[in-house]
């Protein structure tokens, strides 16, 4: 039984989409069920090791796709009703990299997070390893993790305002500087 079938078997209707590329399996699961899904995968699927957890900002990807669509539309002069659909697409993804220690299989579990509801339940209860990665996702993308024991900025300083890894944040920054309180006075 291949990994694909096994995962589909375990998750049942929690599996939204399944994508395989160069042997790497990536599954998408609904946002509200992420903790249950990961717990199921841990218990039944044998994916007992959290390798990493990180976010992806899809802003540019959607912009590019929209541009392409527009171009093709102009060429063929087709007036489709795709505009409404595009705005619904959730902006962020959070990807959990799982590893099975017994079979050495890797699995990417992906959750889409819309911009107007930047909150996910924490998985620190399942793996302590999710502690800092979740803080980093909060720092870099602004996605909050409900129930996280210590959700503060990890890499940037506390007074920093933006979320640097978002696609609309410029590479060279906006000229932020760090001052300590006794420096200013």
């Amino acid at each position, binding site marked *: 039984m291949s990994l694909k079938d096994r995962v589909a078997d375990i998750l049942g209707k929690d599996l939204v989409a399944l994508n395989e590329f160069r042997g790497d399996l990536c599954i998408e699961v609904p946002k509200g069920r992420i903790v249950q899904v990961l717990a199921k995968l841990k218990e039944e699927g044998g994916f007992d090791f959290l390798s*990493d957890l990180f976010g992806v900002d899809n802003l540019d990807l959607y912009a590019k796709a929209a541009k392409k669509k527009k171009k093709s539309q102009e060429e063929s002069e087709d007036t489709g009703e795709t505009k409404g659909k595009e705005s619904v697409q959730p902006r962020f993804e959070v990807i959990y990299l799982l590893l099975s220690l017994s079979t050495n299989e*890797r699995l990417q579990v992906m959750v889409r997070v819309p911009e107007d509801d930047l909150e996910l339940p924490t998985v620190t209860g399942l793996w*302590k390893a999710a502690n800092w990665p979740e803080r980093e996702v909060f720092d870099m993308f602004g996605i909050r993790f409900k129930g996280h024991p210590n959700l503060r900025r990890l890499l*940037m300083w506390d007074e920093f305002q933006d979320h640097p890894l978002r696609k609309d944040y410029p*590479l060279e920054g906006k000229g932020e500087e760090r001052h300590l309180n006794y420096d200013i*006075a």
Partner: protein
Amino acid sequence: MAKQLETICITTGPVEVGDYVTLNIGPIHPAMHGTLRVITKTDGETIVSAKPEIGYLHRGVEKLGENLTYSQFLPITDRLNYCSAICNNVAYEMAVEKLLGLQVPPKAQLIRMIMMELARIADHQVCVGILGVDLGALTPFFYLIIQREEIYEIFEWHHGARLTNSMGAIGGVEADLPERFHEKWPKLRDTIRKANDETDKLLTHNRIWMDRTIGVNAFCADDALNWGFTGPMLRACGVKRDLRKEEPYLMYDEVNFEIPTGKHGDVFDRYMVRMLEMEESVKIIDQAYALYKELPEDAPLMKKVPKIIKPPEGQIYHAIESPNGELGFFIKSDGSDKPYRIKIRPPCYMVYQAFEDLVKGEMISDLIACLSSLNVIAGELDR
């Protein structure tokens, strides 16, 4: 005074009022390698809590990766784990090759293996040397570092840099092993073994060393797996797991080597695992070199890769066993010449986040021993 206190509150979270002394170590402190910072609360000399604070070397590598082309990002990977830059280079190259669906010619694979194992030896030598320095044993450091210069010499012959190597390219390696390598390697093998022997004689059965390391920060295997430990740290806890064996890449499945493991996961076990791994690395290089010699001299070194690399849309994750553990690159491509998202999975990131669990209840002096034995490299920790 009030203002200063406020500042401390911002960086450490709420300060509890009690009989504990808050002791800040770092970010510039001789025992805090580079830019690490730990805020400890102590009861006498016993640590009640230790909060690591990172980000003092956050250079925006991942954001930079999104704005550079695939080949341009290669030199940036050197600056992640600067003790063994070659492992980073190869990990990144292999990730992009996986994205492209390339298979590298065997000669290039063997050269990569030889160089990676040399880098592994150099990394472990720094780690063991610095562990000695932090515990007050300066001599092994001097023995090891002079030996390391000879490994650097080989790197210089091959790709022209000592530390930030930028070895190879996407699709293979750019140069064959230097001619002088063939004379140098048998001598170098002996000097590596000699330096290790000297270190072994100076440290392993030293009474002070044993007192300072045995039983310090013992860690159990279940906790280690839950915290996401990999590499020597996990093996010291007694889990026999090495990506070179579990998910063989390059030609690691054609060479024989052992995976040294510890038992208790204390500082001594980590030190021993690193020492034994160096010996295994020497064995691997010997076998890889023998395999290399079997190949014809004009065997190809590079696979043909277009000048502007444009991988198909998709996302992959590829990990190798770096000296510190599982070093992985996640690359998402949108079909253009720049990666859409690069995520680096640094091995010491996961190890360092368990720091509070590791040192709770120990003495301040054991905190220093623990930190040195973790071999946390700020460059890859903060990226």
